[in-house]
């Protein structure tokens, strides 16, 4: 198999991370009343972005090791 699965997983979660992070920064604080006052979009966006980037990092390193 030539498709490194970490690539699409990393990409998808990085995109989700950026989307949630951006929405968390822009959205009105009042919507976080239900999530116990925590800006969960911001924090979980960061978690997803970190997870996505780690996956992408592994995938790109493996690709680099194999050569172009």
């Amino acid at each position: 198999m030539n498709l490194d699965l970490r690539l699409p997983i990393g990409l998808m979660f990085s995109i989700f991370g950026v989307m949630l992070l951006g929405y968390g920064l822009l959205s009105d604080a009042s919507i976080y009343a239900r999530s116990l006052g925590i800006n969960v979009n911001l924090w979980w966006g960061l978690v997803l972005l970190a997870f996505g980037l780690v996956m992408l990092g592994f995938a790109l390193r493996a690709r680099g090791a194999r050569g172009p």
Partner: protein
Amino acid sequence: MCCTVPHINLGSVDYAILGVYFAFVLGIGWIVRRYVKGSEDFFLAGRSIPAWICGLAFLSANLGAQEVIGMAASGAKYGMMTSHFYWLGAIPAMVFVGIFMMPFYYGSRARSVPEYLKLRFDEKTRGFNAITFAGMTVLSSGISMYALAKLLELVLGWNFHMSVVLSAVIVLAYIFLGGLTSAIYNEVLQFFLIVLGFLPLVLLGLKDVGGWDGLVAKLGIVATNAGYPDGAWSNSWRHLDSAASNPMGVEWFGLAMGLGFVLSFGYWCTDFLVVQRAMAAESMTAARRTPLLAAIPKMLFPALVILPGMIAIALHTTTPGGLLPAGPDGTPNYNLAVPVMLAHYLPSGLLGLGLTALMASFMSGMAGNVTAFNTVWTYDIYQSYLRPGQSDRHYLRMGHAATVFGILLSVVAAYAATRFNNIMDMLQLIFAFVNAPLFATFLLGMFWRRATGHGAFFGLLIGTGAAAVHHGLVLSQGAPPGLKGGFLGTVLHTYPSEMAQNFWTAIIAWTSCFVATILISLLTPKNKSDDDLRGLVYSLTPRQQDGGMPWYKRPATLGAVVLGLTAVLNIIFW
């Protein structure tokens, strides 16, 4: 289900997240399609997938929407005892299939579970298994499709038919393009999405109820209100001495034998839906490690799927006015635990992620059913009985066609399941009739070389018949005679709960099949020589040599570690 739930309004960010997910799922199918050259690529992913990917797919294929919704419902209805479906009803069987059974499944080069039965026993045993299995997969995928569409209609106000068509078309597209490889790759993606999509819900819920200790205190109120001992919702084993002292209405023997042995081993060790993921592995050791690697996240899943239900019932009982809407019979509608919790805690943004996770779980379960169905249909029914001896290209085309009509049949089945309040109970019932005796057949087939084809076939029939007869003569407390039992006119015994009734149906089916297979085998001549059985039966197969591997890669060591950790979890939450 009633209609007292206020609709959740999704924002554009929520739809955007769902859209990105759909794009990735279809994109993976599109990229993988070029690997599909022959039928083995389509049905078995060319036997080339690494163990960790197979392991996560193994788990994900089982983690359908009915599991996520049903387990949370059980968490609310029965509390911590639901963890038995994992720590007792899954992990030991997963270890067993990896260490002891995979050498025969993978080593025999059988392309499906029914095909193994043909190699080991005979044509009729295979035929019986193939046809019942094909029916069962279509039914399961129909049930989960129905559940999902009903749920989306209820909480989002989406059109029922649109949900059915949309989800069916996407699953159809990616399996049609890339076959099992596409299904497996997407299952891994879905696995991460399910975990990362539901985790914030669990964390927020736990924080809200004051952590585990706070939850236990609130569940104490739930239990005493219902007339059970204080810890009935927060202990897994402590209240199993009699059926009357726990909400599940089972005692330890029925639970351990019925769920822990018969149903669990019957599912994890013989169900092609999961076994197929391991058969796609790149090597024998990878195949054996597949269920073992899957067992590690599996043992933590109660926190992800049962805990939301437990939190929901705790909040429901302790907040004035309640949280869960009432079902048609007046009790809380447990099946709504997950969507209600999603709406309760998650703001726009994370809400979209949570719903996408729910959608992902639905798709992984449905794809699991569809890939298992198209393989069994093409190899075990079409190639065996309808059109043998055609070219590989012909069967590949049939696989594509089977994917289409498998999904069409699921859609038909989606309109058939409404009678049970708890979807898991209904699935248990189906498995009890068809799957419960099956494990006796495999156990004897793999470990007793004297077992014959006639013994296996008639043993299976007797086991399935015994299940139906038992179910027809007993009833659970308060249930009307009919689909729920007692349909043979007289009711000989009344069980305290539907769950107990199902466990005992399974125990009786398994025992009848086991005894009947042995007796009939001894009375009939062997139909396979020892030479034929090499690689199919334990005593005639060379042992796996795992000496050259590091300890953490050896199936036996890995299995022991997994069992040890599971025992610790059982003790912590005793």
